[in-house]
């Protein structure tokens, strides 16, 4: 049995990246006709779809808030998204947990007080999972929200980092994630430099934590740069299509 060498002495990871490099990112907005905002986001082999509906009328009467919009999140994985087919369970624990976590993230970012007594739905569907799905979903949801035109305080970008064999790595893929080292997904608001989501499992010393945290922040910044660049182009295109400037 060959023990996987996660980071070679030459400084290359299993897929050829260096430790501080994030995977290749690609995304597209406005895929669906019925959703108010939708985005397709891929980071490496992880592919995620996000669709946003809202603000719209609250479906469950009792849940509406008089001074703000309620956010509703749902995270689900397609059965063919993982290497081994998983029996789809929308209500399984992991999906629920991630849904709640993402909801809390966006609740703090979306300007909900602008839309009282409404509901904003964010639906995320994972098409292919290769590590870092929760971060990819957050990024996709951000893009979908932007596509839907819902005002937010800042762009939410998310990236995960970890440590294997004493080396801090950014953006772990599935193999590296399964290695058993600590995994730290982080979501920040880049302009304001604020953290809106931080989770970690396994254990780290304080010094290691500092290092990994730094890596995650760097990773988020890298992603933000990529997303932002393309977003400007998309916006320009949209504006040109309309041929008027508001």
């Amino acid at each position, binding site marked *: 049995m060959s023990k996987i060498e996660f980071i070679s002495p030459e400084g290359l990871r299993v897929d050829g990246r260096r430790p501080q490099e994030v995977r290749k990112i690609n995304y597209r907005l406005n895929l669906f006709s*019925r959703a108010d905002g939708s985005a397709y986001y891929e980071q490496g082999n992880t592919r995620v779809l996000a669709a946003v509906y809202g603000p719209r009328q609250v479906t469950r009467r009792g849940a509406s808030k008089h001074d703000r919009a309620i956010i509703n999140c749902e995270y689900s994985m397609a059965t*063919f998204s993982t290497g081994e087919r998983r029996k789809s369970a929308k209500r399984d624990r992991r999906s629920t947990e991630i849904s709640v976590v993402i909801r809390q993230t966006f609740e703090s970012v979306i300007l909900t007080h602008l839309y009282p007594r409404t509901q904003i739905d964010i639906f995320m569907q994972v098409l292919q999972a290769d590590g870092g799905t929760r971060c990819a979903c957050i990024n996709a949801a951000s893009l979908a929200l932007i596509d839907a035109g819902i005002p937010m305080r800042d762009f939410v970008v998310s990236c995960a980092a970890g440590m294997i064999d004493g080396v801090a790595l950014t953006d772990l893929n599935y193999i590296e994630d399964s290695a058993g080292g600590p995994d730290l997904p982080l979501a920040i608001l880049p302009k304001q430099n604020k953290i809106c989501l931080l989770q970690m499992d396994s254990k780290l010393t304080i010094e290691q934590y500092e290092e990994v945290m730094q890596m995650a922040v760097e990773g988020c910044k890298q992603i933000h740069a990529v997303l932002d660049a393309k977003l400007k182009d998309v916006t320009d295109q949209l504006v040109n299509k309309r041929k008027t400037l508001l």
Partner: protein
Amino acid sequence: MIKISPSEKQFLIDGIKQNMRTDGRSRLDYRAFTVETGLVAQTNGSARVKLANNTDVLVGVKVEIGDPDPDFPDQGRLEVRVECSPSASPEFEGRGAEEMNAILSAMLRNMLQNARTVDWASLCISPGKQCWIVYVDCLVLDSAGNLFDALSIATKSALFNTKVPKIEVMETSSGQTEIEVSDDPSDFTRLSTASIPISVTLAKVGSRYIVDPTIEEELCMESRVTIAINSKGNICSIQKGGVSSGINPSEFNKMLQHARKIGLVLLKELDALLDKEENNDTSTKIGFAR
């Protein structure tokens, strides 16, 4: 939730009477659809069908090794599942889509579960002990009417695209069977999908019937007939749905004839498209980013 007002409804019905639908098609015109295969690398086969950029369906096929059906010990198995993603409609959130999922799954299963659609015997590994199980998972991403047809086209394409890895069964000295998978990604067998049918949906609106209804038209229709046609022109399954009155049997026959004609045309086009897809290099596929 799409709602439609009575005047809109009237407008639609009148338009259909005059062979003019809201998007400019005639009654028996099909929407242009695009098919893309091999998008999801994690699956053994996948396809995405878009009907005029509105209806978006993604089908992934995974094959796994498992126990065969005790009634058919020397055949492979098929498991079909349809899931409507809430991105298609907010009412599909949580358990809202269950009914829809069940109906769609059942319909697909009817179409495919037939012994003649796919060569099930070729999926047997060791009779009575192991066989390939084909899991067909459909994901409805965007719904703008006529999910049945979109799903059937996508399923056929996905099955066409499916690559079953070549395995070798060996008997070890202790009498157990061991399976070895070929590491070579180009070592695979394909499924014979020539006999897989596709469905054509006819909706009766007013006194006429139309093919490939949009979602607004679906809200106006009285009844719906979904007919599955295979490449030989044979009818593989029929399903009648819809809320209101029944259909006259003679009218029904005419509907069948039309469905058959349209189906054959569709199939030919689909086959041509699939072949083109096959010969396309994977690296030029852009997939979702198009």
